[in-house]
């Protein structure tokens, strides 16, 4: 680790600790959504960025994680219009099982994931979204149907990640509600997920994945069991999706099938493109960008030109955010090979003047000079 990496890590860690003491709940909530998105995007980047397998069904695995957690953790409920099932397991166990369940779901799809490539795989995974929506709205006892169901708060060693009005937690004069508490949980999960993915990418599996992306036949001839690897990465990526789903469920406090639709799946693709394909940092940057953009525009819509308040004629904040995020995808691919991460790296290099600006970032989108056929 270079000195600047250590410095940066320290700064980020300090920021992560201090933030909940200053920002109000709604910012924390958006921050938490961004963290969850980052975990999910890291998983997708392992699959799409590093291994070259296009997936448009990532949202499905988030759903499996979210509803898996809710089902495992909830006590069964009789009565009401619908009876709701549940296993009533301890919540940490439920979370782990939910992540594993997402992995199993990925494993079930892997016969397809191992066989198909490119656009075919992309659209085949699209089916997951529709099948998932269908299953979620029909499996009412598990998912609560169309309206979803409430999420039991996480409880770790007697510490509850929820608002506890009866026993308020106050630290340094700041009341610690559900979101403040979850913030730290989210930050730790993201850190762990990021480090793990980095280890995978830089290690033996990562090289095998990259070679499968670049030259599948060569990978096989070099001893990489290609189908098993493709399936394995699919499962791993699903588990990341599942973990993101669990975190989102905890932040939401209510999970609803509608949320895990096509738009969400596309947003994850946008994240890894915007941030930078194939790397952990790229996924995180993209996730933060895509999840915070609408929020920032809404918050500052009155200060921004061309954006109108809700209900007036013109481009509203929500629309502006949509347009900007669509544009960002296009602009990044056209002008920023390597995504925002590539841009940051280049800027740092240029400022540090350590290498000429032309040095291509490792995972750039631009083709490298032709190799001979």
């Amino acid at each position, binding site marked *: 680790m270079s000195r600047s990496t250590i410095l940066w890590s320290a700064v980020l860690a300090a920021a992560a600790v201090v933030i909940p003491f200053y920002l109000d709940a*709604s910012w924390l909530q958006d921050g938490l959504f961004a963290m969850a998105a980052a975990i999910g995007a890291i998983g997708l980047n392992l699959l799409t960025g590093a291994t070259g397998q296009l997936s448009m069904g990532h949202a499905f695995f988030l759903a499996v994680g979210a509803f898996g957690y809710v089902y495992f953790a909830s006590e069964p409920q009789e009565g009401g219009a619908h009876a709701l099932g549940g296993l009533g397991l301890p919540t940490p166990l439920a979370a782990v099982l939910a992540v594993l369940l997402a992995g199993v779901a990925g494993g079930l799809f892997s016969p397809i994931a191992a066989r198909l490539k490119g656009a075919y795989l992309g659209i085949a995974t699209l089916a997951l979204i529709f099948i998932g929506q269908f299953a979620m709205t029909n499996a009412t006892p598990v998912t609560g149907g169309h309206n979803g169901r409430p999420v039991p708060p996480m409880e770790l060693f007697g510490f509850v990640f929820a608002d506890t009005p009866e026993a308020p937690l106050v630290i340094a004069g700041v009341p610690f509600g559900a979101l403040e508490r979850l913030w730290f949980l989210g930050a730790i999960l993201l850190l762990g997920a990021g480090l793990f993915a980095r280890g995978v990418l830089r290690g033996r599996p990562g090289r095998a994945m990259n070679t499968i992306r670049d030259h599948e036949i060569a990978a096989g001839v070099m001893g990489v069991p290609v189908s098993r690897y493709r399936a394995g990465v699919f499962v791993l990526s699903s588990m990341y999706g599942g973990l993101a789903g669990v975190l989102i469920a905890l932040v939401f406090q209510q999970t609803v099938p509608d949320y895990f639709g096509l738009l969400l799946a596309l947003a994850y693709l946008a994240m890894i493109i915007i941030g930078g394909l194939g790397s952990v940092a790229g996924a995180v940057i993209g996730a933060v960008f895509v999840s915070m953009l609408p929020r920032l525009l809404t918050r500052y819509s009155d200060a921004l030109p061309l954006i109108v308040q809700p209900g007036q004629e013109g481009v509203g904040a929500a629309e502006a955010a949509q347009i900007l995020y669509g544009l960002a995808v296009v602009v990044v691919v056209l002008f920023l090979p390597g995504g925002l991460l590539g841009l940051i790296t280049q800027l740092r290099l240029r400022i540090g003047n350590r290498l000429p600006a032309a040095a291509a970032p490792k995972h750039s989108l631009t083709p490298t000079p032709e190799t001979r056929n």
Partner: protein
Amino acid sequence: SEKATGGGGDAAASGDGVKVGPGVTADKISIGLMTDLTGPYASFGKSLTNAQQLYFEQTNQAGGVCGRQLEAVVRDHGYDVQKAVSAYTEIGPKVVALAHVVGSPMVNAIKQRIEADQMLTIPQAWATNLLGSKPIQVTATTYDIDMINGVDFLAKEKGIKSGDKIGHLYFEGDYGESALNGSKYAAEKLGLELVEQKIKATDQDMTAQVTAFKKAGVKAILVSVGPRQTASLVGVSLAGGMDVPFVGSNSAYSPQLLPTPAGPALLKDFYYITGGAPISSDLPAMKKLAEDYKAKYPNDAIDSGVSAGYSAAAIVVDALKKACENKDLTRAGVVNAHRSQNAWGQEYGGVMDFTVFDKPASLRSYVAKPDKDALGGSVTFKDAAVSDLAKEYQVPVG
């Protein structure tokens, strides 16, 4: 930090001796609107928002409430649950009540927090699972009551009798399923056979469904879907020679359909059932609302959202006024004040009982009929009434 408040309780008494809480200051009361301006219910959301802002403006001109001016805090969730949750986290701590929330999935997603916050909330959805929560006030009838009254109407005026088959086309989700509960009940009571067809909001072409209804030989069709699907259903049925009466839920119709090719079919034998009076009705309050609305929003069409939003705003403001009398403008105080009224809304054409919350506030439904020339595109076909069937019906709650 700014956030370091010590975490104490948040109710306090302001200078005038009125207990206040979040959303109320010495001169201002903030009311949240969580609406859909960019999603599938954008036109409805826009009418609701406009109408409520009109009401608040009128109230402010008349001196406000409790010496305070009303302020609307609008957030557009675009019919996206996550955005709704985010919006609630953002505006929840700053408002005293939610004068409308579009979409029952959105209300459900924030239901726990609404209850924890004791936030008076008027959903613009009429599914039965929204009942049973003290701060949540579903206005007038629920979809099942409307359908029961609708079946009753079919039996009394359209010659449907025991042994006949009737169809019901409904959306998946709360709306359709609530309505289906009602139709199932009524069909059983009257000895009718119900032919169900469930669709999704993304389905556009009802040909297959019509074929299925035709095959079953239905004598009338209940409709609990969106306006587009209604138009397709009615158009295809008629064109295919299935000339039966249609009875829709209040969300199944929109005046925008009249200029489309489905218009004539809708005008022929389609009715919709609604707990709130159509804006074209003779009630003086409605007439005034229509005039004021036209004056303020000359370019916007008038639809059912206008009257629904306006009366919902009135419910919230009346609750605030009552709470002011009780010198308690905290959220809990507002909810209690609201729940103390048992005959609200005569002037809007429907008497509602707010003291119970595990039953619909009213069992009376209007039968309305599309009309090209009428304001809001429909006229009252039959005045509000409770059917005997509806009186005996046990509403499923939650």
